[in-house]
């Protein structure tokens, strides 16, 4: 997201209540992508996702003095981000007449089963995005081309103008990092259908490092 900062997640959490804007920048660099991703997962509009992401950091800033620095920042920020995105979604719904075709798979965000699907995906998006953002840039690009663009290793090698062996080794390293970073999802409470349950409260999740 930005220049490397010297603080670990624990140090960021401990410093966040102090109101230091350098820490705010570091928190944004660490979590801004995931915050935006969660917002987009819920509102499905880039401009409104940006508004929700902005509201997330402003609300977190306002409440920073009350944040317990011994806790992880990630679950706390996720909760604020989800709330901001839901608020933005509801604001959008009131301004624009709701077309059933625009509901994009959910018709409420307050407990209706389809809304639950969106919120479940928001949690997964948060976890995976944090893990992806922690990858080195060259490895992240290989993962993106492979999964999101659907390219094979030879196709990636051609697009990035590098040997296939390099692509494979980067892919292997990246997937090992992702598997380690997301191992807790394998052990998390699971529904019988294989969906990952969202933790309640501020249980630990993927950190930025």
């Amino acid at each position, binding site marked *: 997201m930005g220049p490397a900062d010297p603080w670990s997640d624990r140090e960021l959490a401990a410093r966040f209540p102090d*109101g230091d*804007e350098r820490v*705010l920048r570091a928190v*944004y660099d660490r979590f*801004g*992508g995931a915050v*935006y*991703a*969660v917002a*987009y997962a819920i509102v499905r509009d*880039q401009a409104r*996702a*940006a508004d929700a992401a*902005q509201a997330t*950091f*402003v*609300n977190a*800033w*306002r*409440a*920073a003095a*009350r944040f317990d620095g011994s806790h992880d920042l990630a679950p*706390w920020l996720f*909760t604020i981000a989800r*709330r901001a995105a839901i*608020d933005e979604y509801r604001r959008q719904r*009131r301004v624009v007449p709701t077309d059933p075709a625009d509901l994009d798979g959910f018709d409420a965000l*307050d*407990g*209706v089963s389809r809304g639950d699907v969106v919120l479940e*995906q928001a949690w*997964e*998006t948060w*976890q*995976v*995005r944090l893990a*992806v953002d922690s990858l080195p840039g060259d490895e992240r690009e290989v993962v*993106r081309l*492979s*999964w*999101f*663009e*659907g*390219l*094979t*290793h*030879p*196709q*990636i090698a051609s697009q990035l103008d590098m040997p296939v062996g390099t692509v*494979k080794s980067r892919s292997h390293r990246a*997937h*090992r990092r992702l*598997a380690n970073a*997301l*191992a807790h*999802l*394998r052990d998390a409470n699971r529904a019988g259908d*294989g*969906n*990952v349950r969202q933790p309640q409260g501020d249980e630990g999740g993927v950190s930025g490092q």
Partner: protein
Amino acid sequence: MSGGDAGDEDEVGVPDLPPGVDASLRRADVWTAPPADLFDRIAAAVTSTPRTDAPDSRFAAARRRWVLVGAAAAAALVLFAAGFVVRGIADDGPDESADEDTPVAQLALAGTDLAPMAKAGVEVLDRGDGFALVLVTDGLAPAPDGMYYEGWLRSVAGDSVSIGTFHLRDGDGTVVLWSGVAIDDFPTLTITLRAVPPREAAEPGSGGEGEPVLVGSLDATA
């Protein structure tokens, strides 16, 4: 195996990802990037946003402001009654000192699922003609356009009385609500979020009073 490697015979074992992660990696939200100026917007917004560092001190400040308003009202009443002997107006006026404005009850409000990061401290002041409830909110967002907050006192039997509305779009998050009912008889305080009339279809679960965002029960002080 990665998404695009079907049929790649040279693929050396790639660490398996937890179930469901592959589906996430195929979704646009995992890869979408925020606008380049997003942090600048955030920085500009936080510059003008006060942090809620010491909400307890705002109780005294709110009481002092309210005492001044009460004193001004009492003075206006004296002027209006000029020419008549109205004994005891000065004696019955509001306390001169905020230190003498002692709460008869205090409570803490916790955020519901709709506002999990919000909380509020409340002091209840007996003003003789009713009860003032001074709320110092923390982490409760301004009411969205077209909506507002409302306070409700509820009895054990479930009867509820409205004690006022607010929106939090300016100020420091301190709100003064008024109750005409005895606090001991209506010990639960709920803050709900409601739509400005005319309303669309009621929000699910609203119960007609809006969606609860803060809830707490009164404990009388000594």
